[in-house]
Structures are given as C-alpha cells and as structure tokens.
C-alpha cells in the first residue's frame, strides 16, 4: 500500500504560501498516484479562507482550528501534529524559518526518518527514497538515500519544485481540531510575545531599479567605499548579502534574501556574492543579473545572466573609473 503523503501548509494574512502548490509537485514525484492531504493550522475566518483556497488543489484538507494557533508556535503545533498524523506517513514541510523550527523535532516525535532541505526526488526503491540536497552553501550537491518505510518528515526547499497550478483535486475539508487537542494543550513552555518589525533604513532597496550588491568578497569594511563609488557612478543603490550585515558593516535594511528584503530591480550587480539560495530567494521580478566573483564555481553564476570571473577588489574600481569617464 502506498504511504499517505501530507503537506503542511504555511499561510500568512489569509493566503497560502507559494510552497503549498510546490509540495503537490513534490508529492507527485514521490508517488504519482499519491493523494496528498493538506494540513492547515490556524484560527477563525482567516483559516477557513485558506482551507477553501487550498481545497481546490488538494484531495483532502485537514484543518486544526484553535485560538492558540492565531500565531503558530512550533512548540504548540508539534504535539498536535504528532497526535493526528499516522506514524508511517510522509510529511512534507517547507524548509523556511517555521519549518526549520517544527520539522526536526516532529521527526523525532513521529519516530520518522528526517530528510532536510530536499531540492529534488529521484524515485523510491525498496522503501528508500533517492533525493537531491546541497551542501557547503550550494557549492556541491549530493544524492542521499532516505529510508522512508517507517515514515518520514521531509523539508522541501522553497522554489525547488514547480508549482502545480492545475487545481484539479477539489477535496473535502476535515476538521481535526478535537483529535489534535485531545488530552490537553502542550507547548506552553515557549510563549510568543510579538513580532519586532524590521527597522527602516536610510534607503528602501525594495524600490530601487538598479542595485549594486556586495558580499563577503569585499573582505574589509574599508573596501565598501569602492562599492558606494560604483553605485554613485551608475545611479544605483547599495544592497548586500548576509555576511556584510552579520559583520555590522551595513544595516539590516540593505540585506537581500529570505531573511532580509525581497527586491525587484531591473538590474542587479552581485559583487563577491556566492549566491546562496537564501540570498537568491530575495531576488524577484527576473532582473538582469551581473555577477562578479573570483570563484568560477560560485552558485551565483548559475543565476546570473552575465558573469565576470575576477576579484571585485580589482574589477570594481576599474569599472567605476570607466563609467565616470563616459559620463564625463
């Protein structure tokens, strides 16, 4: 008998995350005949809206509706999921900040295998799933073999599986709340307080048409000046990748990526940025991407339109000089 497949749906402001439809494709790659059950937790009318939206794409929707889930805390939802999910099932969860909070512990509680951050599936043989992952910030990929015969929790990298837009399922919505809270609520050991909104910086990079973005390749804080010089010559704004913010050389409001800002410029210059999926996840609207990096194997060259294999410390000042010459 085929294993049951579940997809944990992340939603915000009454709208399901893009990963909902990506998990249908992922589930289809596990087993083309699998019927996929969406699991959606939340509270009230907002939850009902999401369930209705998702039901057009999944063969069944399990709903957990509880006031404690108005803002979902992994410590609260994990015991609920452990109660309602069958031990031998396969549970797909998006590999983002909430999934990373929930999934490893869920695999322990379900006594299931754990396959984190899968980017592709290549088939199941004798109860073992062959999957593709990345290591070393995307510099190399690996095939892994995961024994899913006793159940598995699998986190899916957002954007790695194509969204299934067919909306062909049209499933029932089943209220699982009573079963989920049977025996009482747990998870009070961690209490959600509030969301501290990102600080507004001196530039709003989400509005910029042209971004000159700098990463670890800049090496020293003093070298940032050359990046600002280039941006000035081009009429661009300066953004950056995570290591520059970690080093406190630029403010968080300039960081492009899933944990920073989502930007949609026309032109994006990636200078000394390796191009992790978290960074690329913050780039939308198909900009023209120019990558300058001394490491020819940097993943950024896969995402870029044009690449230059050079040390940015040498290349950037020369480019700036030329642009300034042209502009007179």
């Amino acid at each position, binding site marked *: 008998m085929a294993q049951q497949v579940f997809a944990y749906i992340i939603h915000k402001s009454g709208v399901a995350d893009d990963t909902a439809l990506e998990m249908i494709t992922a589930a289809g790659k596990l087993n083309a005949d699998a019927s996929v059950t969406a699991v959606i937790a939340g509270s009230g009318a907002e939850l009902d809206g999401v369930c209705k939206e998702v039901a057009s794409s999944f063969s069944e929707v399990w709903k957990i509706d509880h006031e404690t889930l108005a803002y979902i805390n*992994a*410590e609260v939802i*994990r015991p609920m999921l452990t109660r309602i999910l069958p031990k031998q099932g396969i549970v797909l969860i998006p590999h*983002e*900040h*909430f999934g*990373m*909070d929930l*999934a*490893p*512990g*869920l695999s*322990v*509680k379900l006594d299931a295998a*754990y396959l*984190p*951050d899968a980017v592709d599936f290549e088939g199941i043989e004798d109860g073992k799933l062959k999957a593709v*992952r990345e*290591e*070393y910030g995307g*510099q*190399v*990929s*690996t*095939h892994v073999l*995961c*024994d899913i015969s*006793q159940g598995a929790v699998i986190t899916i990298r957002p954007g790695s599986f194509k969204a299934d837009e067919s909306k062909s399922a049209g499933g029932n919505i089943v209220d699982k709340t009573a079963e989920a809270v049977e025996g009482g609520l747990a998870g009070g*050991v*961690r209490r*959600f*307080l*509030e*969301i*501290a909104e*990102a600080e507004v910086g001196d530039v709003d990079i989400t509005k910029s048409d042209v971004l000159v973005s700098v990463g670890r390749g800049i090496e020293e804080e003093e070298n940032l000046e050359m990046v600002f010089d280039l941006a000035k010559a*081009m009429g*661009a704004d300066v953004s950056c990748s995570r290591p520059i*913010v*970690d080093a406190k050389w630029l403010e*968080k409001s300039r960081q492009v990526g*899933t*944990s920073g*800002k989502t930007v949609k410029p*026309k*032109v994006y210059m990636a200078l000394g940025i390796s191009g992790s999926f978290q960074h690329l996840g913050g780039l939308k609207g198909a900009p023209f991407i*120019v*990558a300058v990096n001394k490491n020819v*194997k940097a993943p950024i060259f*896969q995402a*870029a*339109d*044009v*690449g*230059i294999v050079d040390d940015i410390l*040498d290349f950037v000042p*020369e480019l700036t000089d030329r*642009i300034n010459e*042209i*502009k007179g």
Partner: protein
Amino acid sequence: MEILVCVKRVPDTAENEIEVNRDGTDIERDDLVYSVNEWDNYAVEEAIQIRDKVGGSITVVTVGNEEDEEVVRREMAMGADNGILLSDDAFNGSDGKGIASVLKAAVEKGKYDLILTGAQADDGAGQVGGMLAAMLDWPYASLVNLLEVIDDKKIKVGREIAGGNQEMNEIDLPCVLSIQTGINEPRYVGIRGIRKVASLEIPVHTAAELGIAGNTVGESGARMKRLDYFVPDAGEGAEILEGSTDEIIDKLVELLKAKGGIK
C-alpha cells in the same frame, strides 16, 4: 547558568573552494583548511556573554575523533570553561538523529540549563538542535538572533523570520536554541589564547561510557545516507565575459546601458 554548546569541525568555506573528488565519493579533502563551523562560533560567543553577565560555566562538546578535538580546544581558548569529546567508532556514519542521540546521552550525564547549537553547519541541514530538544522533551527555538536572560527560569529569544523581522518569544529553561549568525560579534582568538589551552586534557567519552547501544547510532542506525557528491548540470548559467579587463568592461558597460543599469 550551566551552558552546553554543541560544535562541529568543518571545512572552512571562506578559505576553500569545495570540489568533488574524481569518483564522486567525497569532496576533495587534500589541502582543505578546517575550522569550527561559523554558526557554532556565534553560539559560543553568546554563551560567554551570558556567563559573564549571570555567572555559571560553559562546556563545549563535539562528536568526532581526535582531529575534531582541535575545535573544542579553540572554543576553550575563546573562553569556554570545559570541553568534552564524544568519540567512538560506533558513531561513524551517524545521521542527524544519530548525532542528536549521542549528544542526548552526554546531556544526561551533566546538568545543563541551556544548550546552544549553530543554526546549521556544512551540510545545511539545521537538524540536530531540534532533534535533541525533542529527545529531551525540552522546548526549542531555532534561528535565534537575540537572547536575553530574564531570570533563572526563563529567557527571551528573538528568532529571525522573513523580511528582516524578528519573532520574540519567552522560553522556559532548560531549553535548546539554535543560534543564527549576526547575533553578536565573536571575539578573536589569538595565538596566546590557543597556547594557554594547548596542554589541557579534554575528556573523551565512548559509546559504552555514555550507555549508547551501538546499533542505535552510526551507520547501522542511520536512515539517511549520503550516496555521492556531484556538481549539478550547469544548465544555462551566466554568459561569462572573456578577454582583457578593458574588453570585459567595454562589453559590460554596453550591456548595462542597454538594460538601464547606468542612469
């Protein structure tokens, strides 16, 4: 506060280009520079700052062999008080759950209020902290980029979520946290610091001493196995501009003008 920090020795990606070896069985390990996983370094720094504020001690632990001992020693040079090496042939080939099981056994031999791990390491899985918490039945928070001790029963943590926002939580002790980079500025460790801890004895615990049955960890207990390493099909990729720097800049400037990149 008694703090345990779990660390891992990894190839330093800032110092090395990671390449796949000829038959795809491993990455090319000759000439690799190893260091402590970057995230773990932030975790140790955070532990030091907590200890210096509220007192207590810090133990750094790793699962590995005698080569891995160097990262424990390095973090002691940084300021951790104790180090432990969990080492046994039976641990080889462990998956995330195997490593978490070994760490759980070590946790139960001590008395800790707080366990910190890095948010992820070289394999990008980000799994051991969450598993360890679930095994211990302790609360967990991942991707922590702010930590404030409230009292000896609870702490306040900020989690990094999307869009540069931060999710604030109060969490009871004991708990497990995975620490995100940027939470602090890890201190520099000089040669003198390293020298000071060079001759310290670092206790080694084996599977038997930890009371771990061999078949629950290591390769036999692993449900996740790595088959190979490979470099994915390059696909389209970028058009790499060739020629002298002048020629490259000529081409680039034309492209940028055409795409509206120079205003």
